[in-house]
């Protein structure tokens, strides 16, 4: 069963981390990623560029409009994701709890929809 873990954190305070702390956090991410790969539960995972580089696209009545930035003003921004393969939600939550963002921000765990047959 696939779950997408969406990592929400305050990107400004993340960017403002002193270099030593940033290195430590990135080290934790690498360790988590490697452990998840070793456990055979990693499918994909990426860090996203900051929200100010984002573009929001909408098509209304056939017209494409683009706007700068993400849809809503929030304290925490989507900063990255992991696509994992977990046995069930309990397993997925256990994995998500080890993602560093779970301590400083939050991780939203969403099951991936399965289409065609159950």
């Amino acid at each position, binding site marked *: 069963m696939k779950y997408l873990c969406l990592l929400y954190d305050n990107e400004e305070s993340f960017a403002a981390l002193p270099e030593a702390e940033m290195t430590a956090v990135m080290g934790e991410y690498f360790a988590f990623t490697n452990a998840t790969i070793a456990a055979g539960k990693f499918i994909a995972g990426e860090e996203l560029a900051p929200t100010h580089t984002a573009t929001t696209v909408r098509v209304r009545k056939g017209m494409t409009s683009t706007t700068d930035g993400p849809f809503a003003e929030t304290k925490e921004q989507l900063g990255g994701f992991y696509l994992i393969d977990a046995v069930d939600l*309990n397993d997925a939550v256990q994995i998500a709890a080890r993602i560093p963002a779970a301590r400083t921000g939050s991780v939203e765990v969403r099951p991936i929809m399965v289409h065609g047959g159950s």
Partner: protein
Amino acid sequence: MTQDGAGSPVSASTRRHVDTVYRTDSRRVLATLIRLLGDFDRAEEAMHEAFAAALVSWERDGVPGNPRAWLVSTARHKSIDADRRHAKFDASVADVTAQLHPTQDDEPTDDDVADDQLRLIFTCCHPALSLEAQVALTLREVCGMTTEEIAHAHLTPAPTLAQRIVRAKQKIRTARIPYALPALDALSSRLDGVLQVIYLVFNEGYHASDGDTLLRTDLSAEGIRLGRLLHALLPEPEVTGLLSLMLLHEARREARTAPDGELILLDAQDRTRWNRALIDEGDALVQDALRSRRVGPYTLQAAIAAVHADAVTAVDTDWRQILGLYDVLLRADPSPVIALNRAVAVAMQDGPAVGLAVIDALMDEGELDRYHLAHSARADLLRRTGQLTAAAVAYEAALALARQEPTRRFLRRRLAEVRGG
């Protein structure tokens, strides 16, 4: 159970028998079927088909030796048949289905059945579901209440409640919330969640006075039933403590309301109207829980309720012991509400002026500002120390926050007294 599958005549005695088994065993049958079929809705559908089939088959062949096993096995076959019908033109799906449902009829043992019931409880009370969804699902699946009954008891429109249950089941299926007992390292926190749901169900019935009182009382009965069930399945000290606490509260139900529906406080209750059998049972349970040496908040609250229950008159109450228990409880669960109750015990033990000072200090921290019982407790102590004008102000503050009608009437009465005095 009113349908009889094929429309053939069914004798009254068979019908009664099936009804009885439905009442006593349908939840256990369901709990096992959810495990075997892997889905709430399929299990429910299959179970109802099996009960319908029982009317015909038990009439013809007599009641089987183990009706529960018969129902589980029949329901399982009905579900497999339904799958085969769906898969009629698709042999590959039928193959998969055959693999999914092993054909041997291994009858579940009593241990399996108990585990299935626990699986059902822990799944309905899974923390990934909202608390309201946990309550609704538990009442529906574990207690077997109908959606309409649950909606009525919660003063919620039935469609809203029905949607809540559908969504919860959808989440269980889609997010794959496992139908499993929690891992040992998670058991204690998961059990806390289950106890919270059970106590919430009980309290909704015990404290609610708006709406249909009779139906709300049913919720207390369901809370106690859940407590008994969990205690039989998993006799952890806090499970025992919660059951004891509910029984000791329930013992006072009759005495806490006057014939005109007015609220009677503990110190004014006619203690001969307390239910002795429930008190004795609650007493024995709390002793059990205390002996475990793993004493948690429910057990401590039950112990406090037991001290009250032991006092023949209000004056005989052992406030020193109650205060000692509150001290321990406050360490186990340092919440402002517990601190408030402790302050009331201080007032009883050391006098209203001392208690008042403790409450005032608590109120200064601000967390109790919106809690009507804090204002009414403070008002009561002001009244007892003769500060009637300040007492009136505090009763008014309580009245502005209290929602339930009997509580409001009680506060209005007290307000009139201090104003008149």
